[in-house]
C-alpha cells in the first residue's frame, strides 16, 4: 500500500483489499481459484479504465504523487554508477538540482536532474524541487564539462517551477534561466531530456533544451502551474481544475504540438506503483535514444537541436509579399 492514495484511485485500492481478504479466507478449491482469477482480472480492467482516462487535473496529481520515482531513484535504478558533482563554484550547492557522472549500460554520461526530496528534511533542503540560480549555474557548469569531455547529457525534469524568492531574484533567476537555454542550444554533445513528473515552466525549460525531449506518460509540462493560471485568469486558484483542462499540458497534447518527441509509457497504475518497471522502461528509452544521437557529428547535433526548437509555434501567415524580407 503506498503512502498516498489519490481520490480517484480509491476503487482500485478497495478492490485490492477485497482480493487480499478473499485470498486469506478462501480454500484451494477450484471455485475460489476461479473467483480469485476473476477478481484479479477485474482489478486490471479497473486500473486500465481509470488510468486510461485520467483528466488533466488527475494527471497533475499523479505527477505530484509523493511515491513517484524522483531523479535519485532513477540514478540508482537506471545507472550502474553515479558520481555526484556538487556546486556551482560561485555561490553554493543547490540540492534541488543534482548532477554528476553516471554509467548507462556502459555508456559514460553526465546526468542532471531536479530533485524534490522524499521526506520533509530532503524536501526542505531542496525547496520541494524548486531550484535557485545556483542550481542552474551548477547545471550549466557540469554541461560544459560534459561537452569538453564528450559525454552525452541526460536531464531529468521534475519541478513545480524555479524558486520565487528574494535571494533567487537577487542572484539573477531570470538571467540564469535565459543563459542556460542559450548555452544548451549550442552545446556540442547530445542532450536528452525527460520530464519525469512536473515540468513547471521556465524552471523546467532551464534544463530542457535537448536534441530529444520525452515525457513519462503521466507527467505534465506547462507554461504555468494550473493553480497559478487559475489565480490570474479566473482570479481564484480554486479553479485549477479548469485551468488544467484549458492548458492542454499532458503528454499526448505535447506530442501533437511537436513539443516532445516521445512518450514513455508507465506501468499500469502509474510510475509510483512500480519503480523498477518504470526504471527499466526509462533505461531502454535512454539507451536507444543515445545510440541514435551518437551517429550525429557535433555540428549536426547543434543544428538538429536548433531546428527542433526553431519549428515550434502555431500562427497564421497571410500570403502577402513583404518587401522588407530578405527571402
Amino acid at each position, binding site marked *: 500500500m503506498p503512502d498516498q492514495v489519490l481520490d480517484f484511485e480509491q476503487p482500485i485500492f478497495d478492490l485490492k483489499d477485497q482480493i487480499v481478504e478473499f485470498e486469506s479466507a478462501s480454500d484451494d478449491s477450484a471455485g475460489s481459484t476461479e473467483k480469485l482469477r476473476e477478481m484479479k482480472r477485474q482489478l486490471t480492467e479497473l486500473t486500465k479504465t481509470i488510468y486510461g482516462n485520467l483528466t488533466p487535473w488527475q494527471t497533475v496529481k499523479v505527477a505530484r504523487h509523493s511515491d513517484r520515482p524522483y531523479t535519485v531513484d532513477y540514478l540508482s535504478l537506471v545507472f550502474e554508477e553515479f558520481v555526484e558533482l556538487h556546486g556551482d563554484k560561485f555561490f553554493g550547492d543547490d540540492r534541488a538540482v543534482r548532477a554528476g557522472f553516471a554509467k548507462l549500460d556502459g555508456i559514460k554520461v553526465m546526468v542532471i536532474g531536479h530533485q524534490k526530496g522524499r521526506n520533509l528534511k530532503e524536501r526542505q533542503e531542496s525547496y520541494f524541487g524548486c531550484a535557485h540560480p545556483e542550481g542552474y549555474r551548477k547545471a550549466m557548469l557540469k554541461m560544459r564539462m560534459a561537452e569538453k569531455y564528450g559525454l552525452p547529457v541526460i536531464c531529468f525534469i521534475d519541478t513545480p517551477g*524555479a524558486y*520565487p*524568492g*528574494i535571494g*533567487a*531574484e*537577487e*542572484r*539573477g*533567476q*531570470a*538571467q540564469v*534561466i*535565459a*543563459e542556460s*537555454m*542559450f548555452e544548451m*542550444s*549550442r552545446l556540442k554533445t547530445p542532450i536528452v531530456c525527460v520530464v519525469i513528473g512536473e515540468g513547471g*515552466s*521556465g524552471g523546467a*525549460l*532551464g534544463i*530542457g*533544451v535537448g536534441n530529444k525531449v520525452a515525457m513519462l506518460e503521466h507527467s505534465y*509540462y*506547462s*507554461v*504555468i502551474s494550473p493553480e*497559478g493560471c487559475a489565480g*490570474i*485568469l*479566473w482570479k481564484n486558484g480554486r479553479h485549477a481544475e*479548469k*485551468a488544467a483542462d*484549458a*492548458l*492542454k*499540458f499532458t503528454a499526448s*497534447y*505535447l506530442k501533437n*504540438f511537436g*513539443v516532445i518527441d516521445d512518450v514513455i509509457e508507465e506501468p499500469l497504475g502509474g510510475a509510483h506503483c512500480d519503480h523498477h518497471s518504470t526504471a527499466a522502461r526509462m533505461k531502454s528509452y535512454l539507451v536507444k535514444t543515445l545510440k541514435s544521437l551518437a551517429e550525429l557529428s557535433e555540428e549536426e547535433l547543434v543544428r538538429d537541436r*536548433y531546428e527542433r*526548437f*526553431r519549428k*515550434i*509555434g*502555431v*500562427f*497564421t*501567415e*497571410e*500570403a*502577402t509579399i*513583404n*518587401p*522588407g*524580407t*530578405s527571402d
Partner: protein
Amino acid sequence: MSKVLPAPSEPSQSSGSKNKIRRKGIPEGLWLRCPGCNEAIFRKEMLRALNTCPECDHHFYVSAKDRIKQVLDDGTFVEWDSELHPADPLEFSDQKKYSDRIHSEQKRTGLREAALTGTGMVRARRVAFGVTDSAFIMGSMGSVVGEKLTRLIERAIEQNLPLIIVSGSGGGARMHEGILSLMQMAKVSAALAKYDAAGGLFISVLTNPTMGGVAASFASLGDLVFAEPKALIGFAGPRTIKATIGVELPEGFQTSEFLLEHGYIDRIVTREKLKSEIARAIDYCGK
C-alpha cells in the same frame, strides 16, 4: 501583472478649459497626476518629454509605435513579418475565449500582436529593431512574438546588423498558448546564441515591466543590457513571491536600480538619452 498603465490617448480638445485631474493619475484630459511624484502635470509637456514626468522623470508607458518614433530616425522603419497573425492552437478559453481576446486587444491597441519588428536607422546606423508592447495581452510572448523575434535575429545575422530589442512585458510567456509559448523562450534564446556566435551586437532595453518568461529569455541575453529608470524587472512576480515566502518585500525590490546594484544590467538609461546611448554603444562595438 497589474503594473501596466493604459496607453495615453491623444489629448482631448473637447475636455474643455476645466483642468481635469483624475483621481488615479490615469492620463486623460489636459492634466494628469504623476504616480511618481503625485504632482499634477501638464499632459502636453509629459508627451513632449517622451512620456516622462517633467517634474520627477517618472517614465510612463510608451506604445510600441511611439517607441519606434523615439528610437529610430524619422521614417526609416521598415516593418518585417507584419503578416504574422496569432492562432488559437489550444482553443483556449478562461472567462473569455482567447480568439475573442486577441480580437479585442487588436482593436484596442491597433496592433496585430505584442511585438513589432523590422529594420531602421539609429542616428544613421542601420539596425534590426524589435519592440514589445506591454499593453497587448500584458506584452506576453506567444508563438507570433517568438517567431517574429526569431526571424528578426536570423535576418540580423544574414544582414550583419546590430540588434536592438526593447522589452516591456508584465505577462512573460503567454498562458493562452500554453506550452507553445514556453517553447518560444528556448527558440528565441537559441537564435540569440547563433547571433552571438556570428559576432553580432545585441542591445537589450528593459522597460517597465519586464517579467517572467520574457525576462528569463531574450531580455536578459543582451551583450549590453540597458534599463529605463525604476522599471519593474524580475522572474517571479512580487505577489507570487510574497505569497510563497510570506514576508514583505524590501523597498525597491526588482527595480532597475536593484538589478544594477546586483550586477545584472549594464546601465540605467533615461528615455531621453536612449537613442544616443544606443548609437554610442554601436560605435564602440561596430566593426
